[in-house]
Structure formats: structure tokens, C-alpha cells
């Protein structure tokens, strides 16, 4: 089964994303901070990571950069989830190596479509 790591400090969002992805048939591991996300991703590399940008411990951007530097997780698909959609932020997100960028408020359905799209792109 496809495994997805979800990292968000906002419990409502984390539960919602986990719920929706589980419903869509993925195997979900959810953590509430950046450091835990990094540890989890390096120890048990999932097939995709959904990262909130603003988290205590380490920001999603930092986690993203770290994952891109590590040989084991270099190609790991990453989707950033953020409350901010200014041009600069999107630049920073993609600059850190994200594959996609979702802005809150978000549509749970759209999230699943994007996850599927990114995964499909990886397989080809």
C-alpha cells in the first residue's frame, strides 16, 4: 500500500488530511512537528510527504530542504501545505524542492487529486 507521511501542528488539519487520505486508500502516518517528520521520513521513507510550512520544531521548508539533501529521500515527493499564498512564499516553497504547493483554506478533494497527480508523475 502507498504510504503517506502527514506533518501538521494544527490538529484539525492533521486529522482531516489523515482521514481523507486514509479514506482514499493510503496508509497514513501523522506527526505534529517538523523534527518528527524528518526523523520518520528518513527512518521509514514513505511514498509521499504532506508538510505544513509553519510548524514548531522545524518549519516545513527546512524539513523539505533537509530531505532533499539526504541521499535516501532526495527523490521523495513532497507537497507543502500552507496558510500563505503570496508569490514569494510559493517561490520559497518550490525553491526548497517541493513538488506541489497547496494553500489553506484547501479543498480535501483537491488534496487527494494533487497527491494522486504527484504520485503518478513519480511513477512515470
Amino acid at each position, binding site marked *: 500500500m502507498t504510504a503517506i507521511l502527514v506533518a501538521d501542528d*494544527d490538529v*484539525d*488539519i492533521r*486529522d*482531516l488530511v489523515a*482521514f*481523507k487520505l486514509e*479514506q482514499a486508500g493510503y496508509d497514513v502516518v501523522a506527526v505534529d*512537528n*517538523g*523534527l518528527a517528520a524528518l526523523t520518520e521520513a528518513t527512518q521509514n521513507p514513505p511514498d509521499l510527504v504532506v508538510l505544513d510550512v*509553519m*510548524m*514548531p*520544531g*522545524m*518549519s516545513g*521548508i*527546512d524539513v523539505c530542504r533537509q530531505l532533499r539533501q539526504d541521499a535516501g529521500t532526495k527523490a521523495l515527493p513532497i507537497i507543502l501545505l500552507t*496558510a*500563505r*499564498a*503570496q508569490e*514569494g512564499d510559493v*517561490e*520559497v516553497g518550490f*525553491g526548497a524542492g517541493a513538488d506541489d504547493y497547496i494553500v*489553506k*483554506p*484547501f*479543498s*480535501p*478533494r*483537491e488534496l487527494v487529486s494533487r497527491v494522486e497527480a504527484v504520485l503518478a508523475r513519480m511513477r512515470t
Partner: protein
Amino acid sequence: MTLAGAAVVALAVLLVAALVFGGLIVGGRAVRRAREARRAKLATPARRLLLAITAGDDDPEQVEALVRLPDEVWHAVEPNAIALLGKVRGEAHTTLVDVFERRGAAWRARSQLRRRDPVARAQAAEVLGNLGRRDALLPLCDLLGDPDPDVRVVAARSLGRIGDAGATQPLLATLASRRMVPQQVVATALTRLGTAAQNALLAGLDDPRAPIRATAAEVLGLIGATGATVRVESALRADPSIDVRVSAARTLGRLGTRTALAPLLHSLGPDRPVALRAEAAKALGELGAVTAAAALTGLLSDVEYVVAHNAARSLLRLGGAGRAALAAAEHRAGRPSCPARRRARPGGSGRGRARRPPQATRAMIADWVRQVLTVTDVCILTYFLLINSSYLVLIVLASAEFVHHMRRVPFAGHEETYRSPLTQPVSVLVPAYNESAGIVHSVQAMLALRYPVFEVIVVDDGSTDDTFERLREEFGLVEVPRVVPDATPTRGRIQSVHVPRERPDPLVVVRKQNGGKTDAVNTGINVAQYPLVCMVDADSVLDPQALLSVAKPFADDPLRTVASGGVIRVANGCTVVAGRIVDVRMPRGWLPRVQVVEYLRAFLLGRTGWSRIGGLLIISGAFGIFRRDLLVEVGGLDHDCIGEDAELVVRLHRHLRRQRRDYRIVFVAEPVSWSEAPSSLKVLGKQRRRWHRGITEILGKHRSMILNLRYGRIGLVAMPYFVLFELLAPIVELAGVVLVPLGLYVGAIDATFALVFVGVAYGYALLINLIALTVEEYSFHRYHRWTDLIASVLASILENFGYRQLTALWRTMGMWAAIRGGKHEWGQMTRTGFQTVLTPPASAAGPGGSGRDRAPVTAAEDARVES
């Protein structure tokens, strides 16, 4: 009633009160736990339902089940439902709104709009906005004129969420109304109305009132109204108000139409106001016009720092061509000479030596004690009664503030502020001296703060370790030619300015000659390009919401707020991961534990109380936000004052009161910044001597304000209080400690009096500590463990035995040092770096001297001034 009778009554009252507050803490916590557990139990199945329908299960039965939930269960999940409402869109949002509607939320909210309680009105407005009720348009527009400013803000925000263009006119009108709504709130709301608001906004461009024209221009850019370009261009060229022209420039950058190129280039002219030139330089980068590269390159060596800085950033945005131009220009320019003023220090003349205390025999001492006590016994007693009662009053004031604050948290709008592109940007100033160990983590944590637009300025104050190299390596810093403005006086010359080139982090690192922390902060103020500056310590652990929380007063009351301080809490014992507090616990040692209680009482409650009555005299340099223009106006921090952060606040009060300006200096109680407290007596002693020396110097320097009618409540209440109950407190404390046992020994006072003294001085103080703990328990509740509670109660008892007396001794020594030393000594030592200011000049050798190689925590403590 005899003294003995009074003593018995007083002690009984104390005991009962202590028991009551002890019970309140324990009972309150137990009840809270029970309620939370019950809530969690109720909420679990309901939350599952809520998630299911939000996730888009189109199951009418589930929706039905949620609608039919008993009120008690619904209340347990309602906060989650409201939170989700703001975080999802599309079908998930529609379904959620449907649930709220069917539960009668909108109907209930409408009936609450006219309630007497402003919190109820604001909550109702918030609900109507969340639900997007168009039929609430008119009542919400009425609320824009509400007497309570928070209600007006919520109404404006909700009108934005509802998104009906009919609100455009009323929203714009509030900008010029007596009951104002802050511009950024109005503009954000207008932005959400979208293109439907365009016509009303265009009409706003012709309004005779400048704030309305500026906001209209701003919003036209944010909604992407390209049709408005011509109108905005003419505003840029010809509007009489500079604010409107700056907004117009920004808008043209956002709209990105080609025709804007000419008027923007025109606005770069050297005879235009700096604000306009800077904004135009920025807008040209947004515009992405490669043809502007030449003009922007010409600005790189501009004498105005902001203009040059924005031009460089814009060139970066122009892609390859801009980048090449930037690299070439910066290579050519080399290192500019940075204007750093050197002021001649008048050498202070040494004062006469203090007289030696007279030698006295035992009999003489006994006699003397008796004489002194006959005059002072009642005075000392009254003093302790008053000082403790004043704490009580401050705690009551603080509690009132907390109640006010807590009730308004649900609609504080932090998310909104965070998302808005119009929130006032902040320059975060980080003075760093030999911070090699933690600087990279600190800067990363600061760059990850939740705030829309900010920059982090690290001022490397001539570090002798690899502080700078670590930063350069981590962030890929490159040197850039910048002329740093000479807005506030500095001493150490700026050597170079660096920015990251490959990463888009808003970071600026300034290297300068060592000049002390004050000098580093002043340099930071000069470099800062944003209207607000935030002072932080390099080793502070900041909450991600820190900037949002402490900048909120500026967003709520932009015209009057000039400074806002954040509370400092004790980091010892807490778990810190990558520069963030993830678990709050009491420290292990008793020394820091006592300080936790002390910080709660003195900083959290004391300052909140003072802030409530508009008499806040101290904002800690470890976290405070100031308006940059005012810092420049008063000349930045004072190099010659030890308590430079507190001195700044007093000077701001003095300056603004003299000019009879209407202003606010506020304190935000939300925990935002965590600092390591001294865990050894040696360091604590040093810190306290320094703090008290600072207080003494400040009160001495500004003594003409004391009891001066001109300075209002600052001169009549706050400063006299500081003299009486801060400055003199340690002396009276020591007098009590020495005289009462002595008096008892020589028989000048009887046991009853001693008992009353202990009751008033120690029992009452203990009670105050318990009350402080109770307030913390019922407000922020940051220490969750029962063991932490026991530790804090024990610490509040222990504080009275040994700790108080020791600090009193240190404080007296600090005061003495201030009286004796004058300013000469400090001026001499500054050059050796801010970590070593308290070591005598002889031992603090030049760079790399022995005093510098201490652990970073200890070193930073010396520099930090709090009181």
C-alpha cells in the same frame, strides 16, 4: 484592639487566604481536568462525524446525525467545527456551513448582534462572517460604527468573508470615521470582495480624504484590477498625498502592466521622497520589466539604504539579466565607506570616596538599634504592607486584563493578520556577539516565525569566534555594497553588509566593530527597512506566533501604538527542539524554580497590570516591538545606560508626553519568548546587580519626570512607585532583615511585633505568590504536570527564605555601584564587548580575552537587562 490581637487576626486571615488560594489552584486544576476529560469523551465520536463530512463523504445521514447532536456534545466539537470552517473550502465548506445553519447558528448570531456585551456582539459577527450570510450585510455594516474597536474589526473582517460588494462603500468610509477601523483590516476585507468592488474602489480614488484614496489604490492592486491602471498611474504622478503615491506605486507593481514602467521610472528620480523611490524600485522588480535593469543598477549605490536594498532585490527578480547586472555592479562598487559617527565621550570625573562606616561597640549598636527602631518600626511594617498590597492591586489589574484578553482570543484574527499582505512588516534585530554555538538555529527559528512580511537583521558585533562564518556557510551569504543610514548614533564602524543570494530568506547580516549590545541594536535600527522593529536576544527561544501576538496592538491601533512588549518566561527545564519550545516544565534546580514564580509575579502580572493603567515603564530588550520612526526620533538606545531597554521606554514616554501626543505603550501577556534564567548564584548575583544598577541610573537620569505634572500618570504614579517600591525596596528589605532580629535581641521590640512583621513581610508575600500562581493556573496554564504545581508552590515559599534576602543584597550593591561608579566606568568597558561589561576593565582584555570564553547562556545573561 491590641497589637497582639491584630497579629492573631492578621495571621488567621493570611492562613485562611493561603488555604483558599491553594484550594482554588488544586480544585481549579482538578475541575479543569475533569471537564476536559468529559469533553474529550463526548467529542471523540462527534469529531469523527465532523471529519467524515468535512472530508467530503456525501452521506446525508452523517450530516443529519451531526445536526441532531445534543447541545452538550455539539459544544464539545464546535470549536473544531469553527476552526475547520476557516481552513477548508469547496464542498467541504458548504457542508459544514449547512450543519451550522441547520443547528440555528445564524439565527442565534443575528439575535446577539445587539447584545450589551461587546464580546457577544463580536462573536455573533464572527459567526455570521464564517457562515457567509449575505443577509447579515446591513447589520454588520451598522457594527462598523460600534463603540468597541474589536467589534468594528470583526465586523469588517466578516464583511470581507461574506464577500458582498455592497460593503465596499461602508468599509471605505470607516477609514475616515471617528470610530476608525485600522487600514490593513479594511483593505484586507475589501480585497476579499474581489473584482465586484472595482467600481466603488475607483470612485474611492476621487475621494477628498487621503486615507480612502490610498486604500482604494492599494486594494485595486490586490484584486488585480488591471482596468484601473491608467487611474492609478495618474495617482502616482499627481496625487498630493505621499501615502497615496506610495500605494499607487505598489499597486502598479502588483498589476504588472507595461504602461506602468514609465511612471515608475519617473518616480525613481532623486528629488522624489525616499518612501516613493523605494516603493517604485520594489514595484519595478514586481513588474518584471528587464528594461528597468539599467535604472535599478544605477540605484545600487544610492545613498538611501532602502532604495539600494529594494533595487538589489528587484534586480534579483528580473532573472538572469538582472542577476548579472547585480553581480557586475557589486563587483565594481567594492566596499563603500559606511558612515558611522564617532562621538567623543566626555570623560567622567571620579567622585569622592565613600566614608568608612563608624566603628561601634556592642552597647552602642544596641542603643542605636533601639533608637532606629523606635522611629522606623512602624514605617518598615507599613512599607511591607504597602508594597505587597501594591502587588495585589497589580495582580487584580492584570487579571482584569487577562479576562478581557482571553474572552477576545477566539476572534483575535491572527490567521487573518498572517494571511494579509497588508500587515505592517517588521525588522527583527538580533545583536550577536560570540554566539557561534546557537546562532544558526536561532536565525532559522526566527526566519520561520509566523508573520507575513519581515526581515531578520543579525548584527555581528565584532565576534571573535566563527559566528559569522557559520551564518555565511548556512545561508550562502555574499557581501553587498550598502550605505547604511546614520539614523541613530553608533560607535562601532560597520565593516560589511551581507545577504543570502541563492536562498530567498529575508536575512541581512551586518558585521561591525565591537561596540556593545546597545551599539549593535542601534546599528540594526539603522539597517532596518520596515516601519516596525523587533528587538530580540540571539539566544531567546521564540514562540512561532511571537510576532503576530506582540505586533497585534500595532494592527489594532496603528495610529497610537508606539511600542509593545512581550513577556519573558523561564526556558530552563523546557524541552527545546530546533529553537522551539515543545514541552513546558518547571526547571530542575531550585534557583531557576524560584525565578519562574518571580517572573510570573513581577514580569507577567506586574507589567500587565501597569500596561492596563497605561504606566508601563519597562519593555524587555529580549522581546519588544517599536515603531522605527520613533526610535530614530529619540536617537535609539542610550550607549551610556546599563538598563538601555528600560531607559528607552522611559525616554519614549518623556518624548511623547512632552509633545502631548496621544500614544500607547503596551504589554502583551501571551507567552512569546523564553530565556535561560541563571542557575548559579554567581551569575544571578551579577544579573541582579546589573538590573538594579540600571534602574538606579534610569531613575537618576530622568529624575525631573518624577512627580512632574507634565508627564501625567508616568510622572505622578509609575515613576514615584518605581522609586519607592523598586529602587528603595532592597534597602528596606535589608533593614527589616537586620533590624528586626537585632531589635528582638536587644529588646527594642517584642515577639508580637516580630510576628506581625513576619506576617506582613513574608506571609503576605507568600500569599501574593499563591495568588499569582492561581491567576496563571486560570489563565495561561502553561505548566501541566502536578509535580510542576507542587514545585512552584514550594518555590513560592522558598523565595522568602534566602532568595529574597540575597537579591536584596545584590540589588543594594547594584544601586551603590550606580551611585559610585557614574557613567565613566561603563563607557570604558563597552569596548570589550557586551558579555564582559561587569568584569573590571583590567581583567577584560582585548579581543579573545579571558572573559569571553564562557558558555553562551551565561555570557548572554550578563548582557540581558530586565528588571
